[in-house]
């Protein structure tokens, strides 16, 4: 999810779309600040039956996407893993998906 736009030559006025820019001397990284989707959308209930939501936090292979990639905050990630594991048990989500 992190976008690295690191050409040294094109450091000037590039529309980044990110609100946080970490600039070093040679390379310039523009990293979009990640926010927790559950906090932003004010979703209180992370339910195991809500497959649509859960699906976006499961990787292609069926793994749970880590927090450092999805940007979910710690309390919500805890509930999310719980929900995903419940959903797996009742065959709503795969334990391991075939490619």
């Amino acid at each position, binding site marked *: 999810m992190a976008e690295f736009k690191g050409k040294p030559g094109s450091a000037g006025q590039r529309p980044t779309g990110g609100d946080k820019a970490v600039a070093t001397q040679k390379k310039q990284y523009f990293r979009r600040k990640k926010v927790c989707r559950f906090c932003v959308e*004010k979703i*209180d*209930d992370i339910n195991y039956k809500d497959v649509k939501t859960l699906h976006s936090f499961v990787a292609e292979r069926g793994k749970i996407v880590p927090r450092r990639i999805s940007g979910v905050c710690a309390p919500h990630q805890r509930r999310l893993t719980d929900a995903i594991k419940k959903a*797996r*048990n*009742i065959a709503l989500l*795969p*334990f391991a998906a075939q490619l």
Partner: protein
Amino acid sequence: MTRIYEELFIVKPDAPDEEVDQYVEQLRGQLTSLGATVDKVDKWGKRKLAYKVDKYREGTYVLFQFTAGAEIVKELERRLRVSDLVLKFLTVRIDQTLKRLEKRKKARDKRAARRAVNAPAAAAPGAPAGPAAPAEASVGMPGMPKES
């Protein structure tokens, strides 16, 4: 000690609709006769399973919500396990979650209400935002001549 539970189970896809309905009704009757109150029965219909269960690729999902004690849940699970129709089931205790959600919702509503009260009040006498801006400006103004 009664608690609120949710029971989600998968019925074999090749069972005819009437049979499933009959089984669900039967379960509901059994639950009530055991002393539980069934709050909700929800048939989701046929869905694809995420993985194969007993060689089936799809199944009919049925959701029960009921209020009961622990022994009744045990009995219900035993019955589901024995039944030929049921592929898989999951029991989740939800009273604590419901309580937490209600609390969160209440807090959120309260905050929204307070904001709704504050917003017109701030507009009329210029409560927090009003004086702050002029004060800053007046601090800035004397500074300017000194520098120049």
